[in-house]
């Protein structure tokens, strides 16, 4: 069956391509400031982000405030992926016959050069990660990006100096940290729920600010939660993927 598909699949695909090309005419001209997408919902984001949501970075404002529910879901997606990997591959335990590359993964590819370079780089990477998180409001960045960068730094350690090094996390711990991160997010929402506001409405937070600043802090908390969760899950996935089999 797959063979059959692979031999004939180009026919419907070509047809699909032609259709897609054809309908491209009906779309608004690329970059047209009058297109529905640019005139209907988005203007409000552009105008109000800083004043109402307290974030000059409109993307962050939409991400962490207007559509924070989406972002919660997105963080949950990451957690799900982590747990899924855990269920599929089980947690770290060596296989009897571990393949060569896996051995490398365990001891790391360490050579002096790599070692020196990574020692030099890693502090900056980590620092940059934190910067990306806390400055997510005024410059490109945010919890996901920060988390990804931080995890990348840790992975560099693992790759160069072996799995045991660099903030060694056991799977269970990683999961707990990830859940804690998301729980910061969820808790923020539940807090406003308990205080009689809508879920995730930062206006309800018991902080000595109001308006944009309050929301800014709300979304900052959330971003931190995301940062923790993303870091933990990415490390989890990395460790699980590079670990031996359970059986």
């Amino acid at each position, binding site marked *: 069956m797959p063979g059959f598909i692979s031999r004939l699949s180009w026919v419907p695909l070509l047809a699909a391509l032609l259709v897609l090309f054809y309908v491209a005419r009906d779309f608004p001209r690329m970059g047209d400031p009058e297109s529905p997408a640019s005139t209907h919902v988005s203007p409000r984001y552009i105008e109000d982000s800083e004043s109402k949501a307290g974030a000059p970075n409109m993307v962050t404002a939409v991400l962490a405030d207007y559509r924070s529910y989406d972002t919660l879901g997105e963080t949950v*997606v990451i957690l799900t992926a982590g747990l899924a990997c855990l*269920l599929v591959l089980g947690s770290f335990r060596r296989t009897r016959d571990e393949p060569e590359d896996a051995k490398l993964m365990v001891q790391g590819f360490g050579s002096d050069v790599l070692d020196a370079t990574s020692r030099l780089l890693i502090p900056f990477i980590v620092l940059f990660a934190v910067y990306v998180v806390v400055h997510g409001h005024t410059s490109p960045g945010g919890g996901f990006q920060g988390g990804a960068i931080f995890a990348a730094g840790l992975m560099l350690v693992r790759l160069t100096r072996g799995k045991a090094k660099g903030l060694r996390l056991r799977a269970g711990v990683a999961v707990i940290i990830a859940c804690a991160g998301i729980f910061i997010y969820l808790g923020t929402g539940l807090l406003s729920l308990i205080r009689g506001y809508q879920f995730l409405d930062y206006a309800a937070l018991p902080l000595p600010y109001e308006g944009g600043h309050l929301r800014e802090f709300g979304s900052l908390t959330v971003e931190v939660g995301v940062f923790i969760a993303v870091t933990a899950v990415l490390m989890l996935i990395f460790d699980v993927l590079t670990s031996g089999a359970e059986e």
Partner: protein
Amino acid sequence: MMENAPVLILLAPLTGALLIPLLGFRFGRAVTMASLVASLFFGLSSLAQSLSAGPVHYHLAGWSPPWGIEIVVDPLSGVVASLVSAMAVLAAMYSGPFLAGWTRRRAGTFYSVYCLLVSGLVGIVITGDLFNLYVFLEISSLSAYALLSTGGSRSIVAVFRYLLIGTVAASFYLLGVGYLYAMTGTLNMADMSARLPNDDVAVLVVAASFIVIGLAIKAALFPLHGWLPDAYTYAPGPVVGFIAAVMAKVSAYALYRILYYVFDPVGGPRQPIELLGWASVIAVVAGSLMALAQKDVQRMLAYSSIGQMGYIMLGIAIGSPLALTGAVLHVINHAVMKGCLFMAVNGVQWKVGVFRVREFAGMAKRLPWTMGAFTVAALSMVGLPPTAGFFSKYYLALAAIESGHLSFLFALVLSSLLGAVYFFRVIEYAYLKTNDEPIEADAGTEVRELDASMLVPVVALAALVLLLGIFNQTVVTMLVVPGLPS
């Protein structure tokens, strides 16, 4: 608290999923049950709200749509959400003995992912935002992959295929949504249906077709069903009942929601719906035919699911009030009866270790209650009164006659007869044949019923099949009809 019920339907299982690792994996089962029951409670209460005081709109983060995301619980979504969490509670109860042998952390992780699956499905049902729907679609899919993959190495391969096809489906959906966004600039369903151009320009047709294709793949509609049989056949016992019962239906629900609440059912693009109609007719017949060819009971059930999804899609495609009533009613009925069937069969498999039809010989003596439940549900699948299956089929058939599609009617009748053949084959073996060749698992005919925690859900579902049938008019008038598109 009650004004927050809509969002709590989703937050309850989500919180549960997070609490399991935080409190410690040993509480997995307890936390799961608690959170799912809570979710069911909130689902029912917001359903009651929507029935008494009209649809409930919940604006998340306090931003009014279309700028923020809203949750909409109208009678339709309320019913489906409650159905999902109800089935989830039963399935969680059922899964206990299966996971008894697992390591504590693995079982805990399993339960956590299970909660995530439920929250994903509920999220799809109650959201009022097209992109948000995509996010929860992915949550549910990912967790489903994870759960299905615990069924052994064969299931891993099946799951990988499911993952590929499922992601293709999601991409199709997202691209379709993108087309709609390009035309309207909004993602909120209500707002979009107000702003969609009412003449069917090519873009709308293509967008609708993409969404239909994407969700039809997820719903395993016939030509796009490739992932389903293997995924269900090798699926692990504890979850296959739940996944087979609700997952495809939720996608069908989403399709229904978009075709009839976002697009204008009259002025909107008809071509995709026409296509859907014929595809589902083929699905109804082909599913039954393929089920007929199976020797493995669980695989047989999987194929029969393909046929039954055809019923639902058929109702959606015909689109008259009768047809939609039939479709929604069949979503409820089929969830109950197929859940019962899968749970019964997996119970047998777990207890005796057999799956093939031949090996069911004399099973009625050993597991009388389980096979009794199986028989009731099977009769309902065949569509004999007074079981639930008959009544949804009645509506669909009536709608087919009304719309003058006699071929649809013929397909329905034919599939009932085929269903009779392949279900009575199992029943015949279970009740009439005595197993002459001893099963390697263990021979003997003494009564060895399932554990209570597995038997209760199975029997409860079987009872529900009968109740749903006898009181179908109550269900229709109270729950289904209020949910029809105005």
